[in-house]
């Protein structure tokens, strides 16, 4: 169609402007331009500003006025804060809990739900609902469930057990919040792994079963190796999700008791919006971003190399 139209219109009769437009629209980057502009305005530009802010003196007095460049001072201040290293450890623990729960329980859950019966389909639908719940809502519900006189402790009382300080004990608070966050992200992991399981070559699975492979043997030697790319992407997504660990901390513990559940994003929030040190908070956000890049990019590059090989 395009060839016919071009031939019939005759290139000799075209104005230079029309010709330029035609050439422009025939290039792939021309079609990419709207996306590039939107991405640049909504992602790249704010990121550049965040980087600028992290290198500038920005407080309530200066957020509107010109920002004075102060080099690495905000980063030094952030690294020198005792809460910073504690929040790094808390974020690490949070990430680890999410990885273990989402990958291990996620795989087992997806394996169970891959049978395709009406009950497993119903379970999958319920999980989509859980996944779609806003963290502020599910976090509030869990906060009430885990309260001293909440439903979980009431259940423990019914079986003769002592109440547990789920959210106010320094030994349990971080684990409790991490597990709730893992509960919220588990449906996503199950759905992703479930999708991967559906695409497994059935003939290979059947052959392995005929050869006597059980669930663990199948998983170890066939399913997990085939699912490796899926699990790799999922791992990166879980790490990204963990480094955004703000909502549940904010709703359930406000970073406490003390600063036990203060993760990096919550620390950045606290620094920016409770003590109004926007420059230092931007430095913390940059550090978070850097950690995610350091963790995720080599893994993805390695995976791509493996695929290419």
């Amino acid at each position, binding site marked *: 169609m395009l060839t016919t139209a071009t031939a019939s219109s005759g290139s000799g009769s075209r104005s230079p402007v029309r010709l330029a437009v035609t050439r422009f629209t025939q290039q792939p980057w021309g079609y990419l331009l709207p996306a590039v502009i939107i991405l640049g305005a909504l992602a790249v530009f704010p990121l550049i500003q*965040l980087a600028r802010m992290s290198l500038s003196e920005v407080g309530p007095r200066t957020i*509107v006025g010109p920002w004075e460049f102060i080099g690495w001072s905000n980063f030094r201040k952030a690294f020198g804060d*005792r809460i910073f290293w504690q929040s790094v450890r808390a974020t690490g623990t949070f990430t680890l809990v999410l990885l273990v729960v989402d990958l291990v329980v996620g795989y087992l859950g997806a394996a169970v739900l891959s049978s395709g019966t009406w009950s497993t389909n119903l379970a999958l639908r319920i999980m989509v609902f859980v996944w779609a719940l806003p963290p502020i809502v599910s976090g509030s519900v869990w906060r009430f469930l885990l309260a001293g006189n909440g439903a979980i402790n009431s259940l423990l009382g019914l079986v003769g057990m002592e109440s547990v300080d789920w959210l106010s004990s320094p030994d349990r608070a971080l684990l409790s919040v991490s597990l709730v966050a893992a509960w919220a992200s588990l449906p996503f992991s199950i759905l992703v792994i479930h999708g991967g399981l559906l695409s497994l070559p059935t003939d290979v699975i059947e052959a392995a079963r005929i050869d006597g492979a059980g669930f663990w043997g199948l998983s170890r030697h066939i399913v997990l190796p085939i699912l490796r790319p899926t699990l790799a992407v999922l791992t990166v997504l879980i790490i990204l999700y963990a480094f955004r660990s703000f909502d549940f901390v904010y709703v359930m513990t406000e970073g406490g008791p003390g600063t036990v559940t203060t993760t990096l994003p919550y620390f950045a929030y606290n620094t920016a919006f409770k003590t109004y040190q926007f420059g230092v908070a931007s430095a913390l956000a940059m550090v978070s971003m850097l950690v995610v890049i350091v963790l995720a990019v080599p893994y993805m590059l390695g995976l791509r190399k493996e695929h290419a090989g």
Partner: protein
Amino acid sequence: MTRHERRVVGAAAAGLLMAAAGVGAASAGGSHVDGEGAETLTVWTYYVTGGQIDALDAQNEMFEQTHPGVKIDHVQIPFDQLAPRLLAGAATGDGPDVVLDNVVVDFPALAASGALLDLTPYWDAYPDAEQFPDSAVWRTDDGIFNVMSYTNLLAMYYNADVLDEYGIAPPTTIEELESAMAIVAEAGDYTPLSMSGVATPEGAWMFMPLLLSQGVGYCNLDEPSVEGAFTTLQGWADNDYIPTETATWDQADAWLAFASGDYAFGFNGNWNLGELAGLDFTAGTVQLPSNGSEGSVVFPGGEAIGIGSFSDNQDLAWEYIQSGWMSQEASLINFNTTGQIPTRADLADAPDLQANELVQPFVAAAGSTANWPASPNTAAMQNAMGQAGSAVISGALSPADAASQVVSDVTSEIADGGGSC
């Protein structure tokens, strides 16, 4: 870079920070004319309790009746997000017409950011200005940015039914309170005390009277005094006078616990007085028990009113503040609905206030308040104190370690804020 460009840049950065922290974008504010021709004033608050909302509705209704053609649009913003949204608004040139902010924590930041309008010209021309004490007028070297029509203070609520059951008189000292709590704890039917101990300025506000009654505040913190107060707090947690979850309770949580009827005592503010009528038990109030030479001393609290710098109708906003908040009629509506104490001097002897026995401890507390530090880093100091108190209650830190940590943090914030206090 032009002012407009700087605003765009500031807005982008503030937006990214808020997005990174999971905070939603600020809703649009400012006065406007709706389809029916009515002029709308946008008022931002973080009110959540029934009494405060009821009072606001009644005051707005009164204002709308006396100002036909004006509508008040009340926007409720979560407590923690009000100041950030105002600051983000300052970067974009947007914001409400009128705002009720948490002045004791956020004033230095809001006044410095340009989010609030300088009220000096309005205040200088206000005929009733002399009715308000200096503590109700919040100013910097650049002008007046907030005024308070009411003040909120802390006192101790008690469940009179529980105290009658155990033959306990309302305590006035910490020693008496601890004896009373020991009796209640030993009986085991009720929890002795509900209070906030969350790791934020809220928790610090509730804990600080233990130090203030010894003449110790943020500007003269010393480790032995703080350790002593933290040891008291730790003792309450260890003896089950307060539940461990106090370490994550804000004031609303503490009030809900007391209102459940399961607690003998509750430290809380006068803004809850309006809800006493709905409780299933008889409640009483006394000043916070003291443990030092200064008697019962608290920090004055409450919201202050300001006009957004980018309001399109600043004169109408001031008229709303004058008639809807600072006037005698509005102050009494507010008091009778919430129990929040008017700051107007000519209402001190008003029959409404005198007739209410439950409010008297709060009125007395208003006469023995401590001064807030005059430092731009006040919020950071309170935050550090809240974190230390929460850590002690939960057992995460010993009183000695928490005291050492908070004294170091507060000293450094004072120095960082310019050294003045």
